[in-house]
């Protein structure tokens, strides 16, 4: 029985490993099946070096038309299933056509790879980097093995980072002035700010600060926009009176945020907003949304 099953299994096993696999930082990655696996982390301009091990099962002979390894940067739009856009595609031939009888190791190297985009796992879109090993065969299907890895790119702190300050209100009803210390935040940043109540004629119940995330995919009429509230952080409980100022301090680290992505390969964008929501006693909501820019700062630790 076992033997029979073996007949449908690929005739060989392929292992892909990185040269600095032990020392390289691993980050969690969510797979399609919902499981999280740890994968290696790279950034743009790094060399991706490693080796591929091919091991025929049961010492069976494997005939092939050549072995190659590809480094692919793909954008996958879910609504456009099956359509991958490879924005990066590098190939290294590992072997010329021939036959494999026993375990064989192929070193590979992609040096200083340009990987401008970060790995991203969104609602409607996914951007991923894959190492793909293909053993081409005639008549029967190719044997393919993938190894995913994650790319993150770091940005230095922006030289210009203005505060966000704005006065908003409803005439004769509610006037507030809010202030966020910055307009650009790194992923582990803290949002510091203040809300001044200049005029309060409505009975407020509470006030929240929301972090909203907006992913837009596609273009033109086929644009899909997905909005999600990632954080709902209560800033105030009860009704303030005129002249009160309510502090804001929101640590971003507990939330799974990504940097802001601006029109990645003309396929998608991810934006973040701070939404200040005031709720009155009749549960009416008053809100003001402000875009903030997220960036990834190189973690020193």
């Amino acid at each position, binding site marked *: 029985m076992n033997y029979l099953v073996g007949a449908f299994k690929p005739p060989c096993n392929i292992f892909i490993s990185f040269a600095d696999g032990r020392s390289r930082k691993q980050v969690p990655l969510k797979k399609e099946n919902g499981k999280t696996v740890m994968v290696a982390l790279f950034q743009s301009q790094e060399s991706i070096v490693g080796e591929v091990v091919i091991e025929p099962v049961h010492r069976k002979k494997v005939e092939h038309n050549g072995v190659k390894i590809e480094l692919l940067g793909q954008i996958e739009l879910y609504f456009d299933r099956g359509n991958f856009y490879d924005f990066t595609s590098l190939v290294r031939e590992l072997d010329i056509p021939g036959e494999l009888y026993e375990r064989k190791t192929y070193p590979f190297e992609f040096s200083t790879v340009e990987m401008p985009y970060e790995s991203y796992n969104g609602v409607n879109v996914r951007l991923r980097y894959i190492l793909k090993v293909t053993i081409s065969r005639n008549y029967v299907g190719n044997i393919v093995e993938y190894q995913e890895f994650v790319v993150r790119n770091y940005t230095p702190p922006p030289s210009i980072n203005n505060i966000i300050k704005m006065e908003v209100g409803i005439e004769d009803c509610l006037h507030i002035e809010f202030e966020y210390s910055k307009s650009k935040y790194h992923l582990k940043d803290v949002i510091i700010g203040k809300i001044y109540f200049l005029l309060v004629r409505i009975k407020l119940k*509470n006030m929240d600060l929301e972090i909203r995330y907006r992913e837009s995919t596609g273009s033109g009429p086929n644009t899909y926009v997905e909005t999600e509230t990632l*954080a*709902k*952080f*209560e*800033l*105030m*409980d*009860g*009704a*303030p*009176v005129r002249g*009160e*100022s*309510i*502090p804001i*301090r929101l*640590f971003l*680290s*507990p939330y799974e945020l990504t940097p802001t992505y601006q029109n990645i390969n003309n396929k998608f964008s991810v934006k973040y907003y701070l939404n200040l929501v005031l709720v009155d006693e009749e549960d009416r909501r008053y809100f003001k949304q402000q875009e903030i820019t997220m960036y990834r700062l190189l973690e020193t630790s």
Partner: protein
Amino acid sequence: MLLIGAEDEEKWLAEGIAGVQHNAFYLHRALDSNNLRDALKYSAQMLSELRTSKLSPQKYYELYMRAFDELRILEMFFKDESKHGVSVVDLYELVQHAGNILPRLYLLCTVGSVYIKSKEAPAKELLQDLVEMCHGVQHPIRGLFLRSYLAQISRDKLLDIGSDYEGDADTVMDAVEFILENFTEMNKLWVRMQLEGPGRVREKREKERSALQELVGKNLHVLSQIEGVDLEIYKETVLPRVLEQVVNCKDDLSQYYLMDCIIQVFPDEYHLQTLEMLLAACPQVQPTVDIKTVLSRLMDRLSKYAASSADVLTEFLQVEAFTKLSNAIEKVIEVQVDMPAVGAITLYVSLLTFTLRVHPDRLDYVDQVLGACVKKLSSIPKLEDSRATKQVVALLSAPLEKYNDTVTALKISNYPRVMDHLDNGTNKVMAMVIIESIMKNNTCISTADKVEVLFELIKGLIKDLDSATDELDEEDFKDEQNSVAKLIHMLYNNEPEEMLKIICIVWKHTMAGGPKRLPFTVPSLVFSALRLVRQLQGQEGDIVGEEVPATPKKIFQLLSQMIEALSAVPSPELALRLYLQCAEAANGCDLEYVAYEFFTQVFVLYEEEIANSKAQVTAIHLIIGALQRMNVFSVENRDTLTHKTTGYSARLLKKPDQCRAVYACSHLFWVDGQDGIRDGERVLLCLKRALRIANAAQQMASIARDSSGPVTLFVEILNKYLYYFEKGNKQITAAAIQHLIELINTEMQGDSATSDAFLASTLRYIQFQKQRGGVMGAKFESIKL
């Protein structure tokens, strides 16, 4: 927020407590297994129960206390880094990840307190941060409790910091700043409670707020406990800030409570040195604030402080405490136009009490207070409010109590002016208080001027005031007048001249008292005058020939005026007695014609005014008694008077009365003493006449009641016989006595059953004398029983 049934509230509370307990259980488990993540999770969930809006402050407090206890345990856990392995700095961030503000801030405060203690960051910054972050809770009750938690949890740290002298003074200020900030915010929240909800539950809300006042006041309490808060800091920072908050919050409940709190919490010494500042706030509070109570308490405290040691008194003078207080009160009254009279007066009472305690020597201060009060009183119509009058009474009583010597009070010029503003009833009460004070302290009022003032004060008692138709309680009236009578005796001066003046003044005043009062006051005055007479009599030798205004004659003239007034009341019996007293005094002064005149008046009264037979009997006996002692009269005059007297005696209505009066008259003819009259003949005549009357009485009795009457009269006469017999009246013989005894025995046979004790003891006496031997025994020998 509508009115909520108590039942529902109980239910909600029970649910809340259950929620706290449920999460506390898991929290404990997490703590036991050193699981920080779960600990944070469950503590946040537990604290979420405090987000309820359904509970009244009392119930909320119950819930809060449950959570509070759990938080103490959590705090212990946070403190021990070895258990959770997270540095306090990271912990401080970690707890801030909580999405709900209330649990977040409770946790932040808890960690914050650990953080401060660890000294890994400057306490100042942490405190600032905590107090600032708490702004997020604007709900009054939740905010108050949160900040109260902050105050509570930081308290011991603050005391450490604030009292740490090794550090510079800045650390003290940090602590102070923190508390002041927290205090201010708490007060704002507290005040805001008032504004919430509809007006109809206002009363309930006020009650609820009162329940929370201590949370706010606690801050001030902590401030007072910080050792580093010296006078300087208190003066420059603490008080101005607190007062600013008090004034600006414009909430009566808060203002009242906080002012009181300031006064109670901080040391007296500070108050004294910052009096001006503190007092300046008083006129600025809401008109509805019971500022008088506040001020009263302040003054009360200060006066106690003043009493604590003599040294501090100079401080009081230095800071001119009185003037400041006085001005402040003036200002408060001026500003609070709607303050009822009672309020203003209460303030004055407090000020007066303060003055009396602190500056007992400054009568001018007292006068000033009373003056201010008069000013206030004259600006309002007659006092109708019973509480207000009560306060005025208190105001006026205070100096009396203080100065045991009532005379001092008489010096206060504004005193009577305040009294003028009282209604009649109260005026009387006050007058009574004055009199009682005099009596109690046994104060002697010794100058005419003072007497004048005094009577001016108590004029409510002395005469009918304008609205004389008051319903009077007879009993009260008697009490009052008796007091006045007593008072008259307290007016005394050794100097006859002055004394006479006093008497004249008193007379002048009492004269106006009308028929109802004279019977009470005149006797006192008469006796007072008689005392003077006797005094003069004693010194007579010295003053002969001198031009003295106070002579007995003059006094007697005055006396007869007085008594005449009394007889016009009419109160003839009393007048009669007084006349007799005067006559005796005149007798003592050797003024025959004066004495005679008095007797004449007595007889006139007897004839014209005394119609009641019983009164007549009494009068006759009094006259007899008085006349008997007279030795100033010439023979004719005396004869005239005795004749008159015996005549009246024999004309009394009832036979027994006649009999007794007549035998009493016998004494008029037999006066012991060196140059006494010894007219045995007439004595015998009297006694015989008495016997005749007794006989007649006896007969009348037997006719009327078919039984022989009492032999008492006979026995009485027998006693008189014996008396004169012993005194050596030749006209009274043993035979006569013997005869009388037999007569009595005969009478007794009628009803032998009754053995008369009087008779028996009389006979026993005779027996005794017989057996005694000697001259007296010989004399009695011949009497046989």
